[in-house]
């Protein structure tokens, strides 16, 4: 009790005393991350930042591949390249250029088939924050070219507090957004499995508008409108047709990607529109723009749930629907609202995802995002049985998971292996919250304590 009072009313009002533990956990994780792992800023080579697949740049033939690097903070970095080369070409030289500096890369063979080679080629100094640098990779030169599979080019630096935090926030923005919507849905004792598909649809709608020359605001509004419709569809199925939430959202999950595919004629749709791209990769005041988007959405949600009658209605419906109806609450409309909102949040996330990679990918966009959002909500302490909406908790949960993911990446664990750790975390958290598990442990302890 005393600790809460010391933290002051503002803190308590904003975060709530029940979020103290997750906050502490997050702080510890971040500290560990900063002290013991390398901060890095990675340039993705046309890879979907959310996917675990790196797109192979096949057979780089004479010439250069060029990409834009946006470094966030100035300083000097190690330049590291991840690549793979065939046995017969191992040992030949390739070239890496950043800005106007060029480095030589002596290729070598990976330790086993299917592995990537990670090699540091030199150091570079980044002068201006949030500036663009051209990055080139080539196999031409004095010798004839040879094919190299390039995974990514990394700028690595140790001990970077600011970079780590920014990196975590930027990568975690999408899950944070989806988790906000998911929190309200779970608070009504429901669930929304379709958020990934809604993201795909939103991205596709926006991409289509942009690629046909439409205005940026048109793409944003169009995408969000599509997301809202999808969310309301789910809400109608749950509230008025009385379908189970798992079942109702399963339908959109299956069909939604098909719809996204159809909108894009079964292809990924690329676009180039700096105004829109700012959503995903832009920065304000040295902070990623997505952070402001997330903050806005969270603030708006908190305003509505804490300050208006709606928040209480949502929690009441989740806690005891019958009693809520008997108190004059229109449970059907409440459910419609939360599913629509969840769709909207997924829509914002979809816009950001598309803006980040400059294309709408109906196949892989939002993959696993529903699971990650549910995980964030569970860690954040909103129970599945409904009745309590802890939005700040879900944000903390998403940040904790993202920190863990980032930590593992920088410790060298391949992105695809992190799934195992995430699964372990889900189980651990659920067990901690499950009464049956606790009973089991207590019974064991009691038996051990009692004399034979």
């Amino acid at each position: 009790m005393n600790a809460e009072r010391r933290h002051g009313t503002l803190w308590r009002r904003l975060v709530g005393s029940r979020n103290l533990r997750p906050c502490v956990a997050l702080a510890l994780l971040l500290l560990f991350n900063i002290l013991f792992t390398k901060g890095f800023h990675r340039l993705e080579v046309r890879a979907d930042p959310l996917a675990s697949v790196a797109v192979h740049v096949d057979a780089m033939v004479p010439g250069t591949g060029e990409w834009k690097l946006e470094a966030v903070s100035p300083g000097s970095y190690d330049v590291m390249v991840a690549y793979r080369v065939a046995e017969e070409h191992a040992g030949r030289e390739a070239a890496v250029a950043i800005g106007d500096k060029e480095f030589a890369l002596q290729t070598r063979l990976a330790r086993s088939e299917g592995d990537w080679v990670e090699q540091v080629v030199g150091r570079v100094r980044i002068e201006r924050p949030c500036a663009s640098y051209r990055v080139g990779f080539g196999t031409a030169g004095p010798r004839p070219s040879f094919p190299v599979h390039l995974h990514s080019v990394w700028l690595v630096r140790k001990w970077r507090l600011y970079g780590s935090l920014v990196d975590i926030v930027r990568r975690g923005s999408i899950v944070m957004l989806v988790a906000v919507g998911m929190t309200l849905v779970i608070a009504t004792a429901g669930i929304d499995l379709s958020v990934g598909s809604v993201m795909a649809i939103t991205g596709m709608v926006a991409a289509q508008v942009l690629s046909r020359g439409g205005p940026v605001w048109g793409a944003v509004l169009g995408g969000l409108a599509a997301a809202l419709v999808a969310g309301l569809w789910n809400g109608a199925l749950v509230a008025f047709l009385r379908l189970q939430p798992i079942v109702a959202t399963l339908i959109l999950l299956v069909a939604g990607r098909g719809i996204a595919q159809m909108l894009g004629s079964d292809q990924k749709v690329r676009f180039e529109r700096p105004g829109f791209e700012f959503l995903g990769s832009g920065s304000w005041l040295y902070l990623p723009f997505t952070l402001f988007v997330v903050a806005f959405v969270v603030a708006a949600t908190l305003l509505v749930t804490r300050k208006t009658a709606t928040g209480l209605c949502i929690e009441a419906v989740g806690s005891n629907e019958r009693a809520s109806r008997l108190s004059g609450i229109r449970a059907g409309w409440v459910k419609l609202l939360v599913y629509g909102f969840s769709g909207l949040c997924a829509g914002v996330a979809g816009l950001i995802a598309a803006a980040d990679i400059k294309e709408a990918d109906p196949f892989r966009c939002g993959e696993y995002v529903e699971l990650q959002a549910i995980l964030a909500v569970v860690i954040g302490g909103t129970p599945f049985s409904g009745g309590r909406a802890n939005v700040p908790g879900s944000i903390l949960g998403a940040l904790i998971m993202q920190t863990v993911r980032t930590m593992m990446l920088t410790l060298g664990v391949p992105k695809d292996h992190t799934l195992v750790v995430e699964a372990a975390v889900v189980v651990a958290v659920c067990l901690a919250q499950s009464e049956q598990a606790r009973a089991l442990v207590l019974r064991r302890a009691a038996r051990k304590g009692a004399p034979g």
Partner: protein
Amino acid sequence: MAVAQESGQAILEMRGIVKRFPGVLALDGVDFAMRRGEVHALMGENGAGKSTLIKVLTGVHPHDAGEIVFDGARIAPRSPLEAQRLGISTIYQEVNLIPHLSVAENLLLGRLPRRWGRIDWQAVHREAEEVLAASRLALDVRRSLASYPVAVQQMVAIARAVNMSAKLLIMDEPTSSLDEGEVARLFETIRGLKGKGVSVLFITHFLGQAFGIADRMTVLRNGALVGTFETAKLTRLELIGHMLGKDPEAVAELGREKVAHRAGVAGEPFLEVEGLGRRGSIEPFDLSVRKGEVVGLAGLLGSGRTEAARLLFGAERATSGQVRIEGRAVSLHSPRAAMAHGIGYCPEDRKSDGVIPDLGVRENIVLAVQRRLAKWGVVSRRKQAEVAEKFIRLLGIVAASPEQPVKTLSGGNQQKVILARWLATEPRLLVLDEPTRGIDVGAKAEVERLVEELSRQGMAVVFISSELDEVVRRSHRVAVLRDRRKVAELSGDELDEQAIMRTIASTHPHER
């Protein structure tokens, strides 16, 4: 009042059973005994302890004190399955079989005959037909159980229990969903079981049925044993008296207690209801309530009081009749509509219909009144706290803080929170359904005084209670319900507990 039994014939003896739940003593040293081959009815109002006694007997809950002797041996079953193996089977109101499996499978599940490792379906159907024949049922054993009406499903459940050598069959409200013909068939089956030496424990709130089938009756009240009686020597009036805790002679001797203001309230009716009813729920009834008047609804469990209350609040849609408020016709099609007209409803089952368990005291109290407190959609925390504080003080709600989750409060305090919720809406008509159930004596008096104060300030009140003395003390008029129908309205001089009991007990020519 207790009847001595020949121990040689006893199949079941429960002695001094005590069962406590957090905050409530559900069974207070209850003795209960049954003979071989008898049909025994267990009677009591809500909260009397009937279901708790059964749960203790069938192993759902362990008992805190006392012992159970069944068929000569001490038992302490730890699960219904164990009780079943000992010979105690239960038939529940919601038939506890697997609806989508066939009749044959339901009869034999767990012991399906096999041949060379696979299920021998021909043998299954043959055996099932034999079992049914033993119970004199003729059904197509291949059809799914759900394709038969509930009455038949119950018979199948009974046949299964008998086939599993049940010595004691417990039937928990078996006739709730049966029509008259089906009830008669059920009774025939029960008599057949008697003939085979199976004892039947029959729980019901239908007095007529209890008189029709039971050899003896045991009445529980507030967790304690009132007594066990031979049916042949008991009258209806006596039974009702036992169930409601009123000694009929003592009541007759008591002076007619009247409250000064019972002279009636003048003025135009606030709420008038004509022929309001709902098919399958309650027969059309008339009712009118004036401003400042307290109208009581009295009757036994199952008489339709709660159904009437729910209709008044729009919690259920009426299939007939009309409602007028201050002379104008209105439609109470939903709780919101009723609330818009100034009607509030404090439900009977606070656990499932009233309390929002995860929310705090403040949030539960302001739940119904939020919109009114809001300015431009924004509800000020301060105003909420004010309202909550006011009612916490007024009703004496005991809670560590207004944010304490309501599920951690005691039953009595939960009831007060729900009362507060409706009082906060400043209703013009308040329907109170068993507002004093589960509250301690001191709080009961407070609630009663509150009702009086409210009616004096001009609020119309509909007051439902199983405690006859409360209803009589507080109401200006009392409508008496029986078997889902309003049968009388008492007021003025003729309003007293004796009269109400007589009205409830008054029999039809063909009843006992």
